[in-house]
């Protein structure tokens, strides 16, 4: 999993499969980066992700709870159809924006 911090914005490049196993690592690393860099915006990049279950939803909600305190936001980018379905079904789209790119 890779992370990129630009000013107060953290991008998390999610692994191929986001489950309880990978979400644990994500939580530890992301929270350290958020605290150290005063991150306000967290972007979840699903470019390389094919699978996610409710543990991924928990990871998104947890990071949202953290940045919400300082008025931050969480975003999802590069979501495929399956990921969008999981996000929508869970209701997490109420707190997270899905960034849709224009189809070229």
């Amino acid at each position, binding site marked *: 999993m890779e992370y990129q911090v630009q000013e107060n914005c953290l991008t998390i490049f999610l692994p191929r499969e986001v489950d309880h*196993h990978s979400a644990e690592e994500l939580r530890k690393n992301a929270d350290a980066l958020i605290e150290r860099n005063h991150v306000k915006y967290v972007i979840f990049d699903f470019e390389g992700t094919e*699978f996610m279950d*409710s*543990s991924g*939803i*928990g*990871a998104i909600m947890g990071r949202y709870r953290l940045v919400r305190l300082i008025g931050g936001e969480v975003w999802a980018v590069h979501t495929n159809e*399956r990921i969008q379905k999981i996000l929508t*079904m*869970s209701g997490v789209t109420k707190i997270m924006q899905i960034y849709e790119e224009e189809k070229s």
Partner: protein
Amino acid sequence: MRDTNEMELIFDSCSANERFARVAVAAFMTQLNPTVEEVSDVKTAVSEAVTNAIIHGYEQEIHKVSMRCRIEGNLLSVTVKDTGKGIADVKQAMMPMYTSKPEADRSGMGFSFMEAFMDKVEVESAPGHGTSVFMEKRIGKGRSLWTTQSL
């Protein structure tokens, strides 16, 4: 051709086996000629059940989880079983957004996902004796024609 088939796996309750269980059930169900979406649905449901056994059943201690899969015609059933701490109130546990571990980043959506992606979900549990989750899904629903790819 036989139209029933069964398999059973017993594995350690470590988080790396969540993926193993998903992949195993996906491989087992290929004989039903499922769509990509059907495979994803079953993988998600199995992942939820196995994760529950690991996190809630055994509370991250290493014991055994069993997964039994059965095919009967076009009906796939999966039973995920642990002998962990069990659930006192199954009805409450199955409510959307309910979690006994909010501090651990759990979304409380596990059972909701299982119910959304499978046709039937039944939970049997007794405190101190473990939990068994039985799930069923008919594969190839609404498909009138079965096409088989020649190799």
